[in-house]
Structures are given as C-alpha cells and as structure tokens.
C-alpha cells in the first residue's frame, strides 16, 4: 500500500491542477461540464479504509471548491461518491473477487469493467453535484440532460487519461 503513496499524491495534485487550470477554464457549453478530478477517487486502492476514502474525497472536493469559488459543493458531491464507491465495487465485483494489492484500472480489470464501474460513480457524482448546484427540482429535465451529457463527456476524458497514462499496469 505504502508504495503507492507518492503516486497518489502526484495524482491528487495533477487532477486538481488539470481540473482548475484546464477544464474549468474551457467553456465547452452550459450542458458540458466535465469533472475529471473524480479520477482520483476512482483509482484509490480496493483495500483502503472507507473512512480514509471519505476524508480524501472531502479533501479533494474542498481543493476544487477553493479554486472555483463554490465552497462545499464539490466537497459534498465527492464525499457522496466516495460513500457510494464500496457498494458499487461490491455490485461489479468479478466472480473470483478482486485481486489483492490491485487498483481499479483498465489495466487490471479491462475496459468493460472499468466503464461500468466509472460510469456508475460518475453519474452518481454528477447527479448529486448538478442538483446541489441548482438547489431545487424546478428544472428537472434540463438538469437531467446536463447530468447525462456531462457524465458522458467526463467518461470519455476518464478513458482517454487511462489509456494515455496507465497503459502497462499489468
């Protein structure tokens, strides 16, 4: 576990940087708001304690919030996603279980598994985030459309990053 620590610190810093200085600066469209930073939560090891997961997600969310001027918004969404992660992992567990000391990447478990796993959590995160952002259910269909489009966009980015930087994990 400890061998991953520097890598995760680097990952943390890089997702925050990419999110703040790249993705938040680019105005794609009102309906396309990719939030790549959740990659950090997705890639944390299987064996991590749930409490640590929550704390790290909170820290990540707060960091994003700090730079985008929305205190609490990303933090709450990230914590919610982190809370959901163990249950999602349980649902999509392979028949023989997860390989000890592995991390949830395409390299270990294949693209199909990763898409199922990441899509679910991304959707959870985005749904929570966008409804928190709008603060009410008045514009339900518009918000839902934003969630779906942004989830797809984030998913594409997640896959691209995976394929570019995590090629030879196995």
């Amino acid at each position, binding site marked *: 576990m400890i061998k991953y620590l520097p890598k995760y610190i680097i990952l943390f810093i890089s997702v925050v940087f990419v999110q703040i200085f790249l993705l938040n600066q680019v105005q794609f469209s009102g309906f396309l708001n990719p939030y790549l930073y959740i990659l950090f939560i997705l890639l944390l090891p299987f064996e991590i304690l749930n409490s640590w997961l*929550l704390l790290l997600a909170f820290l990540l969310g707060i960091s994003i919030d700090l730079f985008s001027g*929305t*205190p*609490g918004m990303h*933090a709450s969404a990230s*914590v919610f996603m982190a*809370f959901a992660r163990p249950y999602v992992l349980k649902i999509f567990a392979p028949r023989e279980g997860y390989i000890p000391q592995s991390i949830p990447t395409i390299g270990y478990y294949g693209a199909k598994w990763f898409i199922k796993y990441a899509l679910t959590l991304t959707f959870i995160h985005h749904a929570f985030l966008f409804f*928190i952002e709008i603060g009410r259910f008045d514009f339900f269909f518009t918000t839902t459309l934003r969630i779906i489009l942004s989830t797809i966009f984030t998913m594409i980015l997640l896959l691209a990053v995976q394929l570019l930087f995590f090629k030879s994990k196995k």
Partner: protein
Amino acid sequence: MKKLIHLFVKNFHFLLFIFLEVIAFNMLVRYNFYHRTTYNFIANEVAGNIHSMTSDWNEYLYLEVENDMLSKELANLNNQIDILTNKIEDRDIETSKDSSFVYLNSRVVYNNVSSRHNYLILNVGSNDGVEPDMGVVAGKKIVGIINSVTKNHCRVLSLLNTDVHISAKISKNNYYGTLTWEGNDEDEAVLKDIPIHLKLNKGDTIVTSGYSSIFPDGVQIGTIKDYVVKDGMFFQVKVDLFTEFRSLFHVQVVKNLHSQEISSLMEETEK
C-alpha cells in the same frame, strides 16, 4: 455500552460520511450567495408554516383574553359614541339656542364625590380663556361651577358641593328656585323656594333657569323625585340628578360672551 461502541465503530464510516456532508452543506449555505438565498427561502417556508400552525393554535388558547379585550373595546367605543353624540348636541345648543354661550372641551383630571365639598380639576386653564364663575356641563347635563383657575388647569366646584347654589326651574312652567346639594346622596339635590300653589308631578324635569350668567337656559339637572311643604309657603323638591358624577371624563366649560356686560349691569343696579 459495549454494544453501543460496537455499533459506533461498525458504522463509523457512515457517521463520518454524515459528518463530512454536514460540513460541506454548512459551507455551501454559508459561503455561496445563491445557495444561501435558496436555503433561506426553504427555511423561511418551513419556519413560516410551523409558525402559522402554532399561531393558529395560540389563537384558540387566547380566545378568552381576546374576547375580553374586544368587549372592553366595544364599551369604549360605545362611550365614545355617547360623547360624540353629546358633542353634536352641544353644537346644536351652541349654534341654535343661545349664541352668547361658547363651549370649550376639556378633560377631567381629578374627580371626587365622597366628601361634602366635592370638586373636579380640568385640564384647561387661563391659557384657554377659562375664568372663575364659568359653568361646566357634560353634554347637556350640569356638572358645576369653576372656582379657581391656574395657567393650564381649573378647579370646578361640582354640584355635589354644599357651597354651590344654582338657579334652577321646573321645565314645564318656568317657575324657578335655588338648587343645592344636601351632602348625603350623590344622586339627589334639593330645589327650594317653589311656590306652594304650583301643581307638581313626580318625574317633571328640572333645568337651569338661565337667569344667572353662568349657565345657559335649559341645561338638564334632573327629575322631581319627591316634594314636601316647608315653612307653609314653599315646596321643598327632591331632585333626582341626571349627571353621573362618578364617571365624568369629557366635560365642557361654558363661556358666556356677555358675562361682563351682565355683571356690570347688576353692579349698577346694586349701587
């Protein structure tokens, strides 16, 4: 206790989740203008509903007090109507009957009915043009005579004062006599010097005579309650007074615009 700790440890991550979300939402509401307004809006709605529910309930609880207050208010308003009607009647007296009298509204600030020399204090004085020996009435009913005046107040010897003598007459036949109070019953005065040949009835009205410059003609005093022959020549008439001396509040000072002329004429004759 052991079980409780076990439960706590087992659900620690859930509690942590709740805890972190509370912090996040707290920040969200506290630092984001949009979310603060949304939160306030929802909070106001919820609080408003609860408040209106409790106030509905309270209304039931305080119905009795409310009723009390309303009935008092009603009595008050009725009194005011009385006062206003009296005022309107006064105006009638003032304009139609006797234009040499002017009425000045005032309020009773001190009132007493329990001694033999009762007096009132009014909130008008020499600044308002009040002088001694002016009459005081309440509506159309007699109250007393002003005895001393300061800048903003004046002292009124009420009819319930054994020193007060008022020229009064029987309304139906205009025979007049002197009305005084005997000092016993606050509802009863005595009219003297009524000639014995007159036919009196119980219930006849006694009014002021208008022969003094103090009161205009026809200010209501009371009704005949009883009469006896005194000294063989005159009736002594017991008069049931109209005025409720205990409840005087708004009274009017009667100014006679010609009082100086009249008194100077009187003085001349006396010489």
